[in-house]
């Protein structure tokens, strides 16, 4: 029992010592995988948020609050994500969440945030269901695109620009990959393409010979891959080694310098992907961001770093606005969630604004052509697509 | 007396090795029969076939008029044959009492849901089982050790516990595989007495494999001798003892002449098992 008495003594001491001029603490939190195979992307988001807090923290601090940023590791696992979410909603200082990487984690976790009106701004979840739910409609937002935009955008490019007829569609059997592949296939079929193979690969799988052997015989016009770079790289490498030179098209999951590292710089010919975040080479603001990022973290930013940065900027701007509305007092979570929808700025990833359900109203999509060096990636084409608003589920 | 156990020309071949070669063997009710033979003679294999652990290559085994071939060991038990093992096989992590209760498995009518719901049947079965287990522990002199873990009992007591556990299956016939192995003379004497009581008090028929000739000669009604899987002699203890073929079997294999009839105290741990 000694422990408790000591504990109480510490509490008392802390209570007395609390900073009196401070109006209290405001926390923003990120939830991304910081360990596990996808930790690279999760860490990229975390670093982006950290940089944004450094850049825009003053917006909140200027009201006399102590601003704290806490990164959480959701391990790309929904149990962990939900457990963390339950922790967050009970910490009254937490006013906003930037997260997650995986839609499969974001969906159940945001159900928890919604219970206390804790807003979530997603830097990466493209699954439509993330913002299409009745129960969480008020708190879910994203600064990235939707699969039902990204998939069709990719399909349009593949069918009209690349003039492909015969397609291989491969997905990584995750909520992200399969969702994107479905959206892609639906549009491609509508445009008259023949999808010869529509298959999945298991998470962590590295041996793609079986699919590629068939492709070597079949000679598809395009191989579309919906998944993350860590499998896309080896897939591309093995594909080229088998002599398959067909264009390799993918989504924003492969927007990472690791694609070049894992796929081999020599294999970047005829590789395209869709993303809302323009490549660093084409956006001056992005270039500046990349330099500062590298200076701070000692590595190049990933596509998701910029999303993380913009998402955090959204959150900080919203908190500042809500604080202003609350006459300098700590705003309620509901007020912050509401303020998020009014945020508008030109971010590194493009124009950031939200429609009534938290999506970018008009997403500018880039078709990026990969180059041997990630930093040299070029915009091949840009299209603007209004976000669809299907019925809420 | 009719034969309780009737084994006809039973044969077991492992790979190329004939472990038991066309042995015919019959045990009358309420008899005490010893099976002897040098190490490797196929005695335990013979037991294993009777109890359903091995399936004979050829031959028939019938018990109480019922065919035993093709039955699983647990089905054989249900028919009334119980056994002990040469290398004691108790359930070490269970208490003495529980070991005996496991032997009651076939006697208890308790079903899964009885145990879950603690039905009247469960309660009466458990009570009956406990009473019977207590009686059996008393019978073998282990009642005061009932809460000891079986693994912690001394060797001699473990052998007796195995007998109690086998008795709990309510057998008509009990097969004892070297029941006195590893015992000192006094324990051997007690066990001999116990085996007699088995037959005399409870009417159970006993077949035993035994190396200690003093035990064999004093308690057996008849003795069967196996050598190289073949039955070489059968008859009253005295006759078997003086059978030249039997003497040759033991001596010819280089066994010390003195072993025959001497107290073979050392447990033959690597004996007959195949």
């Amino acid at each position, binding site marked *: 029992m000694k422990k408790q008495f000591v504990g109480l003594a510490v509490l008392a001491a802390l*209570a007395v010592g609390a900073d009196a001029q401070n109006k209290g603490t405001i926390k923003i939190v990120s939830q991304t995988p910081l360990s596990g195979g996808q930790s690279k992307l999760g860490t990229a988001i975390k670093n982006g948020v950290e940089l944004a807090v450094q850049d825009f923290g003053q917006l909140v601090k200027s009201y006399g609050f102590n601003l704290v940023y806490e990164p*959480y590791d959701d391990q790309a*696992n929904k149990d*962990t994500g939900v457990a963390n979410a339950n*922790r967050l909603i009970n910490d009254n200082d937490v006013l906003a969440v930037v997260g997650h990487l995986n839609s499969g984690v974001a969906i159940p976790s945001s159900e928890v945030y919604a219970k206390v009106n804790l807003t979530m701004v997603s830097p990466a979840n493209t699954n439509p269901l993330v913002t299409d739910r009745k129960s969480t409609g008020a708190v879910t937002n994203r600064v990235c695109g939707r699969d039902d935009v990204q998939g069709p955008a990719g399909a349009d490019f593949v069918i009209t620009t690349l003039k492909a007829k015969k397609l291989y569609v491969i997905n990584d059997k995750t909520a992200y990959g399969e969702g994107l592949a479905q959206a892609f296939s639906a549009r491609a079929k509508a445009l008259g393409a023949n999808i010869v193979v529509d298959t999945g690969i298991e998470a962590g799988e590295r041996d793609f010979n079986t699919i590629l052997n068939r492709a070597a015989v079949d000679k598809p016009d395009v191989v579309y891959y919906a998944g993350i770079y860590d499998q896309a790289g080896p897939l591309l490498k093995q594909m080229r080694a088998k002599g398959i030179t067909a264009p390799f098209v993918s989504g924003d999951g492969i927007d990472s310098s690791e694609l070049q590292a894992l796929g081999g710089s020599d294999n970047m010919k005829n590789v395209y992907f869709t993303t809302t975040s323009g490549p660093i080479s084409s956006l001056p603001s992005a270039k500046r961001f990349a330099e500062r990022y590298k200076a701070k973290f000692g590595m190049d930013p990933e596509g998701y770093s910029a999303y993380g940065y913009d998402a955090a900027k959204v959150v900080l701007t919203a908190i500042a606005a809500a604080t202003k509305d609350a006459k300098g007092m700590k705003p309620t979570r509901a007020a912050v969630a509401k303020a998020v929808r009014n945020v508008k700025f030109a971010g590194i990833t493009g124009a950031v604004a939200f429609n009534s359900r938290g999506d970018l109203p008009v997403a500018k999509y880039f078709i990026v052509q990969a180059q041997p060096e990630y930093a040299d990636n070029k915009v091949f084409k840009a299209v603007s697509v209004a976000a669809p608003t299907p019925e809420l589920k | 007396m009719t034969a309780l156990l009737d084994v006809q020309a039973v044969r077991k071949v492992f790979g190329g090795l004939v472990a038991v070669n066309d042995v015919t063997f019959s045990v009358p009710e309420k008899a005490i029969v010893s099976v002897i033979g040098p190490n490797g003679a196929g005695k335990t294999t013979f037991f294993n076939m009777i109890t359903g652990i091995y399936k004979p290559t050829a031959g028939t085994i019938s018990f109480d008029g019922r065919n035993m071939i093709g039955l699983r060991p647990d089905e054989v038990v249900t028919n009334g044959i119980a056994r002990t093992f040469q290398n004691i*096989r108790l359930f070490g992590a269970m208490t003495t009492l529980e070991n005996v209760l496991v032997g009651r498995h*076939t006697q208890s009518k308790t079903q899964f849901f009885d145990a879950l719901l*603690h039905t009247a049947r469960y309660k009466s079965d458990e009570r009956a089982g406990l009473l019977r287990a207590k009686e059996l522990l008393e019978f073998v002199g282990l009642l005061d050790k009932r809460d000891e*873990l079986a693994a912690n009992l001394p060797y001699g007591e473990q052998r007796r516990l195995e007998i109690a556990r086998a008795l709990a299956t309510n057998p008509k016939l009990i097969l004892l595989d070297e029941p006195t192995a590893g015992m000192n003379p006094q324990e051997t004497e007690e066990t001999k007495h116990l085996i007699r009581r088995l037959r005399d008090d409870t009417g159970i028929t006993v077949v035993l494999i035994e190396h200690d000739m003093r035990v064999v000669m004093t308690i057996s009604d008849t003795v069967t001798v196996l050598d190289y899987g073949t039955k070489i002699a059968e008859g009253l203890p005295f006759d078997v003892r003086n059978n030249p073929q039997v003497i040759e079997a033991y001596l010819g294999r280089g066994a010390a002449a003195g072993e025959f009839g001497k107290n073979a105290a050392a447990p033959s741990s690597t004996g007959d098992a195949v």
Partner: protein
Amino acid sequence: MSALQDKRSDSSGFVVIYALVSSIVAAIAIGINLGPLRFIPLDGIIPDILKTLIFLAFVSSLLLANSLKTSARAKMIVFLFVLVVAIPVIGVSNTQYLDILVNICIYSALALGLNVVVGFAGLLDLGYAAFFAVGAYLWAIFGSQQANNFTGGGFPLNGNFMFLMIPIAVVVAASFGALLGLPVLKVKGDYLAIITLGLGEVIRVLANNLNRPINITNGSQGVRIAPGSAPLEGFLEWLSGLTGIELFKLELLMYYVVVLLVVGLAVILTTRLDNSKIGRAWVAIREDEIAAQAMGVPLVRTKLIAFATGASFAGAMGVLYAAKFSFVSPESFNFQASISILAMVVLGGLGSIQGVIVGAAIVIILNQMVLTAFSNFLADLRRGGLPLPSQFEPAQYQQLIYGIILIVMMIVRPKGLIPAKRNAAKLENLERGELAQKVGKQ
């Protein structure tokens, strides 16, 4: 050792006082929204890590009550007070703790089920999560519109059907267990382990792929149970209006009550099985298959019962898991999930009912609370000036610490934290009852 011979001094008083004091401290320290009951404004002042320690100290009052020598009444007082009064009060104030307790209960019941298979019967099952998946998908599919894809429609079922689905899942999962077990249970030891591993993977891959040609499981997208399908929705809304407590807190409280009851039931059932003919047959098989068979225990049948019993626990908890998370997707039922339930069982003590619950609690508390709190603590220290290398983000290395903890715990307590003991006292009770009856008859 029977209770009669327990020479330890009686700790009833200590345990009761401990439980009361730790509850009050916990209520003050972590029940941050107590409203009028809040004594001092502690919001954001107590470091997270300290709250975690206080919570641990509070929860361990249950363990103390159960493992120290105490009178039955003291035990009862502590259990009732902590489970029925303190936890709901603290939990409603800070749902994180209630949430963790619900998870502990879910995984305790899973661990109890696996304990029947691995701990009692000694069958190494590396694919246990498959049965969990069966239960979870059962409710996810019929509790959402998913079932309309392959039936005439009419779904989702009303949330209250969840209670009906629990027994259905028990039956379905048990049949699954029996069906899968029948061909494979003749295989022994580590071969059984790999077969069960294979079966577990098969179920997961099926869940991940059965979205075509007919969409049964919705594949990797997972099945979401729309809000509004929660059980007792109407009652909870009414209660919420009455008490002013938010609906989601009451929902969580409802799940707490349900899982607590299920765990209680699981403890009673496994204890009963353990002390019956079936339980003895399981242990006998674990100790020595041949001897068990020679005592009349039918191997395959007895193993099958163990397998099906374990599966049925997982089925029931699957339904509750699906309902509580309102989202089910295949990756929750992968090999790692099976392994982490196994870790709970071995860590707590194979075959020990109390042990596996403690094992489940430790694994959950470590992973969902302590490690996070610890990494936040380190991050705080860094902000305060502690020189940690910039590559070291504490939140990234929780699994590393968990790994070390697993190794150390196993080395320090190789038989588990609370090793199993064959319980002789229970038999004696019966015996005494029998003797009394006998005396009465005479």
